[in-house]
């Protein structure tokens, strides 16, 4: 199944490695953005099948970005997966309660990221 995935992270090297990791799956089309605001704009324009969101970003962090996406009917139902370092179980629970589909913890394995994303979207 073809999949459009938007990856939002303020760190350039992580964005780049996520892009090449997701593109290991030839049926995943990837777009990357460097901020929550740019991510929201790209989501409205491109309507991806899934959004991967870094949690700790300057200005508009991941949870705020998620709330903005959930408030807009055009992006409300797009599954959002948080990608964050060292998430504790209470934080993961909070993210799920906010409306996130799931959480992928950094460090992620670049070789299996695409599989992990597909698995979470299918769940």
């Amino acid at each position, binding site marked *: 199944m073809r999949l459009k995935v938007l990856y939002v992270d303020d*760190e*350039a*090297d*992580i964005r*780049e*490695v996520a892009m*090449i*990791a997701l593109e*290991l799956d030839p049926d995943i089309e990837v777009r990357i953005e460097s901020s929550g605001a740019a991510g929201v704009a790209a989501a409205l324009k491109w309507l991806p099948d899934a959004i991967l969101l870094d949690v*700790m970003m300057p200005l508009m962090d991941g949870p705020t970005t998620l709330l903005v996406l959930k408030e807009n009917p055009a992006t409300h139902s797009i599954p959002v997966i948080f990608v*964050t*370092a*060292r998430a504790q179980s209470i934080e993961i629970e909070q993210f799920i309660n906010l409306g996130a589909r799931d959480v992928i*913890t*950094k*460090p*992620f*394995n*670049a070789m299996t990221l695409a599989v992990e994303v597909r698995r979470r979207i299918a769940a």
Partner: protein
Amino acid sequence: MNSMFELKFEGIRRRFVERAMDQCAALEGFVSAFDAGESDPVTRREVRRIAHSLSGAGGTFRFAGISSSAGDLEDCVRRPREPSALAEACRALIAEIKRAAA
């Protein structure tokens, strides 16, 4: 193993080390502040941001030492620890970054 992927990965990995070295300079400044007994909330927040970032990215780029030391520093800065403990955790992370860059 996808050789094109590995080639691209190595390039991005090198850029990560450059970024980590830039952050190393900032961490050295924080060590001086902690050694002087200073640990204001703004400094702690910035140290936590750097540590959190290096903890996640370090492991993704296969630098287990950076990831582990950055995680220890993040844990340290989350708790009400003495500035000397923060300085020590910063030093450990700086050493790992320099080892990766060597």
